[in-house]
């Protein structure tokens, strides 16, 4: 354990920070998209469904590269929006958050949708006939009843975020202490002679973190089952 240096500890902290921020930022959007997809019929629904789920099957490298082309100094958003505002994204931890958010978003939406689909439509109609507005129904009926899906989705997305590598290494680079997360540190150790011990130690940390998250996921699920 004592073999870890400052950059290894900052990699651990950064992994958690990036995954947590990406998950929290995605929550409102994830909820909105899931709501839209579950309770509404509209034109282009299939297209939205496709776009939301695409990162699930696309290689993360593709996502990273497209984000780089979009947000980079010569990129479309990068040049027209970020540069004039003086915002730097590429090769900062913000880029890691964006990459993680895009890659993990479909997992969150899927879980929330599953939660929403199990809600008894009768309850929603009842709340409407009793005079609740649309927004009221969302906050007092749909939100509490899909809580399990929301938590499950957040946990899954957080876990996926801890492991994000392909998109992150392209947009966030590999700056020890700034953007180097656990997977990036492992990658660096694994490709340097004599780095096996450190790579294995960080793998151990990675497995432990993932284990904790999965146990938490199970525990929440069981608790909810009993409560429901």
């Amino acid at each position: 354990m004592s073999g870890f240096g400052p950059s290894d500890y900052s990699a651990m902290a950064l992994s958690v920070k990036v995954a947590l921020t990406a998950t929290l930022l995605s929550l409102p959007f994830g909820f909105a998209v899931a709501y839209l997809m579950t309770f509404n019929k509209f034109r282009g629904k299939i297209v939205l469904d496709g776009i939301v789920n695409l990162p699930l099957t696309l290689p993360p490298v593709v996502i990273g590269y497209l984000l780089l082309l979009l947000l980079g100094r010569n990129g479309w958003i990068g040049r027209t929006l970020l540069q004039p505002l003086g915002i730097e994204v590429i090769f900062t931890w913000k880029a890691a958050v964006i990459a993680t958010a895009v890659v993990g978003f479909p997992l969150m939406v899927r879980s929330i949708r599953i939660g929403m689909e199990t809600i008894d439509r009768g309850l929603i109609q009842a709340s409407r006939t009793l005079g609740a507005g649309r927004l009221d129904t969302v906050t007092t009926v749909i939100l509490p009843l899909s809580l399990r899906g929301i938590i499950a989705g957040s946990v899954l997305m957080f876990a996926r975020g801890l492991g994000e590598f392909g998109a992150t290494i392209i947009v966030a680079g590999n700056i020890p202490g700034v953007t180097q997360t656990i997977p990036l540190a492992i990658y660096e150790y694994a490709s340097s002679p004599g780095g096996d011990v450190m790579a294995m130690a960080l793998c151990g940390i990675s497995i432990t973190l993932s284990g904790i998250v999965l146990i938490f996921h199970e525990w929440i699920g069981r608790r909810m089952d009993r409560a429901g």
Partner: protein
Amino acid sequence: MKSIIRKCFYMATFILSAVSIHPASIDLSIAASLKEVVTELSNDFANMKPAVSFKRNTGAPGALATQIENGAPCDIFFSANADWADYLMKKKLADAGSISVLAFNELVFVGKSGLKVNGLNDVVTLKKIAIGSPKSVPAGEYAMEAFTKADLVGRLKYKLVMAKDVRECLMYAERGEVDGAFVYRTDAAIASRNVKILFIVPQRLYRRITYTMTLTGSGAGKKEAADFYRFMHSAHAKKVLVKYGFAVK
């Protein structure tokens, strides 16, 4: 049952004989900065000896050495330093005594042409600088060596983007995602017009960049590999190396 075993035996003999009539293949593990020059020279060699074919694997020499250590097929190992060849030697994976000097290079700093950077002390004023990861990329090791000698390590902390090999460094600079990058003079020569050499890192700050070539255990036992190894020391090879900007003495 017996006939199945016999069939399997015939099949195995057939497959093995099919392999043996294939042209001899030489596996090369090549430092990223040598990619073009070794590709050209191995093509020259293959043209002279049509029975020989090459498999070329390029990357950071440290990463290549790790691959070899883990059993990746490699007959000749090209590195931008002697350290990783020595490392393989210690692990008994390289043919002792076959490590030889191939060429020399220089470390330069590349960036946008408008940038007012004339020496190492100006680099600390920049925001993001790409170097090869010193754990596996010699170009990054040489750069760190220069930072240490110039006592700039502390002021460059958190500014250094660690690239997986020297060509990725160059790519970061070309795309403008970093302000500049430490690469070899030969890499700068093939860079796009967006970037140019802003200064040459003074030689007194780092060991001379020395490319080495080493036969691995499998390469030492392969006649074609030994032939190519000698070919790489020929006058023709030297001429091609010089053409790409490497120094040969």
